[in-house]
């Protein structure tokens, strides 16, 4: 009954969002210049450093297109605010697959303006990538990440996009690529407060090469700096640390680490001898850059 209710609720919610999304908004997009002037119309593109805004009503038969220098533009606002909020709610409730169609529409609307978007508008890009990753659409996530990540202007969205890429590359079995993303993340000085995936990837790779000392040190990084808040992939890091400590015969250390893992309420699953992803076919996607072991101990 509960499941049925949930399904009904999901369908109902989708129907509502569908209505919200396709109820054509009469509101116009807005462009605000640096001197505070507001221009309404339809944002139709950006080229050569100029934003094009088309009038939506005009006394004459044709609708004029105005061009604005991006240097003189403070920001732009889209008319689909309700849709954005609706998508954010579905995404926030972790219904990633449901969120994808909505987010894709929002993304395509904003794509020409990537680089000058406000953070709230740019977040639809990172949310979409994370939704792809959570819905096992790894290749789509990686492909889009490559297209967009250099243009993302905001720190948070850039980080979220990288996390999505790391998750996808790792889950898809593209280990070299995952290692490259992870090393970039660490080299950039990002912390493990949001996600420990970068350290997990590099630690697991070290573990695969029987380099338990490195595996231990790398996986310990997010653990050492973790506070009480839950951290994505921290349980995996604990598992790698414990396995490496066992391999290195540090039994007393295992007891202390296990104590903390238990106190955090983490369920540490025993590690298999063969990592699960090695069974996946490996396409020829090896990248020229390999993680440099000397740089593994980056800034968490």
């Amino acid at each position, binding site marked *: 009954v509960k499941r049925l209710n949930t399904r009904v609720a999901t369908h109902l919610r989708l129907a509502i969002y569908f209505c919200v999304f396709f109820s054509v908004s009469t509101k116009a997009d807005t462009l605000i210049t640096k001197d505070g002037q507001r221009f309404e119309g339809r944002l139709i593109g950006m080229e050569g450093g100029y934003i094009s805004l088309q009038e939506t009503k005009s006394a004459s038969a044709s609708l004029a297109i105005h061009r604005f220098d991006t240097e003189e533009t403070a920001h732009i606002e889209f008319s689909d605010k309700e849709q954005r909020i609706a998508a954010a709610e579905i995404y926030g409730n972790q219904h990633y697959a449901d969120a994808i169609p909505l987010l894709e529409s929002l993304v395509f609307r904003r794509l020409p303006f990537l680089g000058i978007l406000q953070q709230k508008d740019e977040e639809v890009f990172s949310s979409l990538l994370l939704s792809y990753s959570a819905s096992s659409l790894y290749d789509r996530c990686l492909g889009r990440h490559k297209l967009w990540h250099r243009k993302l202007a905001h720190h948070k969205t850039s980080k979220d996009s990288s996390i999505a890429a790391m998750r996808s590359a790792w889950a898809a079995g593209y280990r070299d690529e995952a290692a490259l993303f992870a090393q970039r993340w660490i080299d950039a000085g990002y912390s493990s407060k949001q996600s420990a995936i970068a350290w997990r990837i590099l630690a697991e790779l070290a573990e695969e090469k029987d380099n338990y000392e490195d595996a231990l040190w790398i996986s310990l990084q997010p653990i050492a700096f973790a506070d*009480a808040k839950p951290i994505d992939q921290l349980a995996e890091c604990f598992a790698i640390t414990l396995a490496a400590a066992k391999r290195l015969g540090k039994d007393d*250390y295992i007891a*202390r680490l296990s104590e903390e893992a238990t106190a955090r309420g983490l369920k540490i699953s025993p590690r298999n001898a063969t990592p699960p992803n090695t069974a996946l076919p490996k396409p020829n996607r090896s990248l020229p850059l390999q993680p440099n072991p000397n740089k593994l101990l980056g800034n*968490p």
Partner: protein
Amino acid sequence: LLIGTALASPNISYDTLESLIQKGVNAFSSGNYPASSEAFQSAFDTYRHEPEWEESRLSEKILPLSGFASLKAGLYDRSIMALALFLEEESYAYSQEIFARYALILSYQKNGDIASAIAECNTLEESAHSHSLKSLAALRRAQLLLDSGKESEGAKLLIEIAQSEGAQRVRQQARLIAIRKSLDDKQYAQAYELLVAKPWETEAMPELALLSIASLELGDHLLEAGKPLDALRCYQRVLPLEELIQLQSRKLAALKRQFAQRQAELGIAATIWEDFYRQILASLEAQLDTLRKAQDYEPFRQLRKGKCYLLAGRPREAWLVFERLARNPTEFDPKIKYLWMLSARDAGYLAEAISIGRELIEKYPDSKDAFDALRLIAFSLQDYGQYHEAIEVFATLVEKSTDKKQQDDAWFQTGYCHAMLQEYPLAKNVFKNLRRNAESSPLKEQSHFWVGLVLFFQTRFQDALDEFASLAKTTASIHLQIESDFRIASCHYALSRYAEAAELAEVLLARESNERTGEIRLLAGDARKALSEDDDALAHYLAIPIELITLKHAASMGATEILVQKNRIEEADAFLTSIRTNLHDPNALCENALLLAEIKLAKNEKAESRAVLEHALVRFGNDPDVQEILPLIEFLSSLSADWVSDQRSLLDKITSTDTSALTSRFALHRALNREHYHESETELLAIAAEFETEALPPECLAYTAAALARIDSPRSEKFAQQIIDRYPNSRYIVFAYYAFGKRAVYRGEGATAIAWLSRIGADSEEFSIFLDSRLLEAQSHATLQEFGQAEAIYQSLLKNRSFGPATKAKLLHGIADLHQRRGDYEQAIAYYQRLYTLYGAFPEYAAHAYYQSAVAFDKLGKTAEAIRTIDEFVSIDRYKNHATVSEGITLRAKLLEERSTQIEKEDES
């Protein structure tokens, strides 16, 4: 009274009920609570008996407002009267009741009538319909209880509220107050329970800030109280200041938006809300301001987290934290570097610890941490076994320190280093000096104890015993008393006074159990066994608890022997098997396997015996770090009918693809079992040629290094270096010293040779290189004209009962030669004569002794004795073919000629 005053007034003006109510409402709306209270009170006093009052149910409408206005105006009696009267009415609305009761509680509280306030809280709790309201009333009651001195009752209630099903915000509030109260009352265990045991359930300010501050405070207390893990949990709950400022800014902005929205919506209640909002906004702004002005505690929090890790035995995490902190130097940089160094040391990275310490000393040479770092460097060097370097650092510490106690400590460690270097005279001097001059009595006694230990190491057991006995008589330290008594018993045992050793050990065992009980029990067993009192010995061995597995394993050797002698083979089997399950050390397991295999063989269970050995070999044979493999191979090969195919089958069972370690061990076993010396040497050299040095276990590196050194190959040094680098704790390390020493001898570097060879202690007697290394050392001393030291070595070897007559002859020959070279011919002759008299069966030495004895007589001018010696020498058949015989004959002829010339000269004269 008001009416009375009004009547007395010359300008009497009567307000209508409507105008009074209007006045009251207007004053209330504008926040003029005294005027509002006055107007409502006046309306009540004047018109309450009027029918209109009753009909319009004005009590119900006016009294709560009147009560609240009076409360705000500070007219508490009036407020209480109005609210109490209202609550006596029967038909008020529920929402009004809540409002009135809450205002009444506040009025009682403000009026100082805490008991009534508490009673009213109880009523509110009972009458409230929702959990939230009940818990809100309870929270107020708890605060009243705390304010009225009923602290334990109040605290208990707070905890109940925190654990209740009330509104989250109220529960959180109760939890916060309870935490604060526990901290103020120093009830840290309770504070910890409240703060850490459950999630915080809030992401709101200012609760998060208050919880963060409380966590920091509690963490500090727990860290100081030696509870690093609990402290760590507290520090992990603290949010960074930056995050708190962000949250507070967001909250302030949200509240401002909410305020602006509500202002338009509210009617008369707007005043209450405005007042409320203004207070809240002012408070939030003040909090934000405080947060912005506060010093960022993040570095201190990380520093404390690092300390927690360090104290909780998680030095790797501590390392990571301190390393990161050290990247952005603050005023605490020296302290952070010192702690980083400590972490590195605790994590077992001694070289890194030393390097961090040296950086600290270089950067902050005058800081206290630099001095501590220097000490830590010295200790790290000690741990590394780099005692010479450690001695240098301790010398710097003595020089730098102005504190006598610190100097004494540094000297004590210096003595320890000398003892570890087997520089016993130096060590003894240091300890004796400290025993006399150290400032602290415990250090004096420790030094006294170490004087005894050094003597024990020097095998001067009687002297050691005397030292321990004198210390045992004088010391007040129970620890040293136990140690000394145990050592006295050990000295008795070493002096073969087994009865004394056993009796003393048993006296000690009768005392209260202590950290040496297991060892004393083992000693008692060994002593009784030496006295052939096997039953008592066995009883001691069996009484060692299995928890002391190392001692139990040591006891198993003696116990097994006794059980076998008594034909209690099954018991021996069961005993060894039971120990086996508790053993973890691979070397001990190999030893156990050897014993067990012997027992199985004694039971005629050859197959089982082989199985035990094979199992141990398959499990540990390919592990280069396990040292006890050769005896296993030796034993198994003796049981094997087809050793070649057995070796192949064992190698097949090894799971690793690289079986170099076991293969090279098989090759070493083959080499060491060759009948002829040169065959053995050839096989050893073959091992050196066939295997990568990196693949060889320590025993293979050792024997091949020695063989290579014997042919003066430079490769021997590579092998020797591998042992030192990869197996610094292996007992085979002495082969490396031997190889380096031997090479130095070849190069004619006597002092270098001595430096290497003197590291080979008496505990290496089991190895074939022991005697050769001692002889090489003596020869090197002789080369350097240090005849006294050379003779001391020979003499000490002569005392060794394990050497056969051939060796004894060689040693006597060496001593005699030394005297000969020094020109001490009398002594040389004495030794030569002793040699050919006692060891005539060894012509290579005895023949030479005869000849050299004659030479010595000649040097002394005793020609007749010289000729007589040669006559005796050449008359013995067994020397007939010896090269020195012809030299003797030549000498005799020369002597005879000299003597006849001499006679002629005397005659002429």
